[in-house]
């Protein structure tokens, strides 16, 4: 039994290999990039606009609104990163309706890679927002004794982020595979529908958690009343 699409290797030469995770990721990237390009090719600046442009605008504005609600005051700065996280994870889950497709987020490598990105992005945005000193000082808050705990917390939450997404996606794919062998017709469809829902929820949770971490890193020195998450 295959737990991860990493195990499906199409081509390998020494350290380099081309597995299903990478291939499906490329597919998703291609679809997202080409779709966006097609839709934004003829953007309308007027009051009337195309249906697809409306969809994208709603999507982008909804993500921006969510980021704002988390507490980030300049959502446009984080929109690219957090929005792409949401879109990628969400698209990876939605695409499970395609037969033969395996979500790349079902691979711990992918989720670890995304968690690593968040892990790097949090100090990146934090330093960018409040400077190196300010950011580093935040690890010694409220007292210096908290420094090791803060570091452990930073590492563990990154790990939790990766494991959570992997576990959910992998379990969804696994349950589907197992059910297909036991009751081949009706039940897997229901589970697929449920998988779509949980996939979207996971995408939301993943990006919201990333936003919260970044918000925590960028606003740690600000007054508490402004933390309206």
């Amino acid at each position, binding site marked *: 039994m295959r737990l991860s699409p990493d195990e499906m290797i199409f081509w390998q030469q020494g350290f380099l290999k081309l597995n299903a*995770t990478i291939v499906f990721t490329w597919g998703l990237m291609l679809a997202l*990039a080409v779709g966006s390009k097609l839709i934004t090719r003829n953007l309308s600046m007027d009051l009337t606009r195309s249906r697809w442009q409306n969809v994208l605008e709603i999507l982008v504005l909804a993500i921006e609104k969510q980021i704002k609600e988390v507490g980030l005051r300049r959502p446009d700065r984080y929109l690219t990163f957090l929005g792409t996280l949401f879109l990628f994870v969400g698209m990876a889950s939605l695409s499970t309706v395609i037969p033969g497709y395996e979500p790349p987020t079902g691979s711990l*490598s992918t989720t670890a890679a995304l968690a690593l990105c968040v892990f790097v992005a949090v100090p990146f945005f934090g330093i960018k927002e409040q400077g190196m000193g300010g950011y580093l000082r935040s690890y010694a808050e409220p007292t210096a004794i908290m420094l090791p705990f803060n570091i452990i917390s930073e590492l563990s939450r990154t790990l939790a982020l990766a494991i959570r997404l992997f576990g959910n996606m992998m379990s969804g794919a696994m349950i589907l595979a197992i059910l297909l062998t036991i009751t081949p017709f009706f039940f897997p469809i229901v589970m697929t529908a449920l998988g779509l829902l949980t996939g979207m929820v996971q995408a939301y949770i993943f990006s919201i958690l990333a936003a919260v971490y970044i918000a925590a890193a960028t606003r740690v020195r600000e007054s508490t009343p402004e933390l309206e998450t």
Partner: protein
Amino acid sequence: MLIDWFTVGAQVLNFLLLVWLMKRFLYKPILQAIDEREKRIAAQVADAHTIKAEAQRERDEFRRKNESFDQERAARLNKAMDETNAERHRLLDGARQEADGARANWQEALRGEHRNLKQDLTRRVGEEVFSIARKTLADLATTALEERVGEVFIRRLRAMDGRTKDELAATLRTASTPAVVRSAFALPAEQRAAIQHALNETFSADVRLQFEIKSELVSGIELITNGHKLAWSIADYLASLEQRVGELLKEKDQTDATVEPALHPNGESQAHTTSP
């Protein structure tokens, strides 16, 4: 091993590439379009505000003009109505005065006509009455009556009072032409002689006489000499009666003419009140 580190690295790169792609193809153009649209909407709203303010200003201006126009129109209308009323009253007064004048003239003309008619009627009636009297007396007059008339004439001659008698005597004496005795019928010779005799006796002189016939006397005799006249005839009575009747009518007419306007200034019931 669930984690393949090569795949992790590849996925990190893939994700970073995807971030760049999304930024390039999705977020940037979409946000740009939204910003552009919002800017355009803001500009349009600002324009609309400007236009609205302008429209408001123009509306106020128009309303103000309209109100002033209404006021001016009302004032002019009132003025025109006042002038029209004044003109109407003036014309009405003029017309009333003209009508009053015309009516007064008409009433005056009517009164004059009425007076004339009455006078004419009175005159005609008198004429008729006297004509009838004359005719009746003329029919009744005969030679026998003339004899009686002659006797009366003689008696009156003899009964004349002193002053008249003296004047007449003087006139008869100084007259160059004979005295004329006129009668309606030819007097018989005895009567002529009786008259001659009576004259001679009365005036104690030989009075020359000339006898003439004059039918207008109706019945009677008159003696005419050098401007003096001694007469007794029915015509004289009738003439004096006619004269007195004429004087009476004239007095009555004058009284009517002065009394009528005072009694009936509007003259509307004149026909009833002035009819005899």
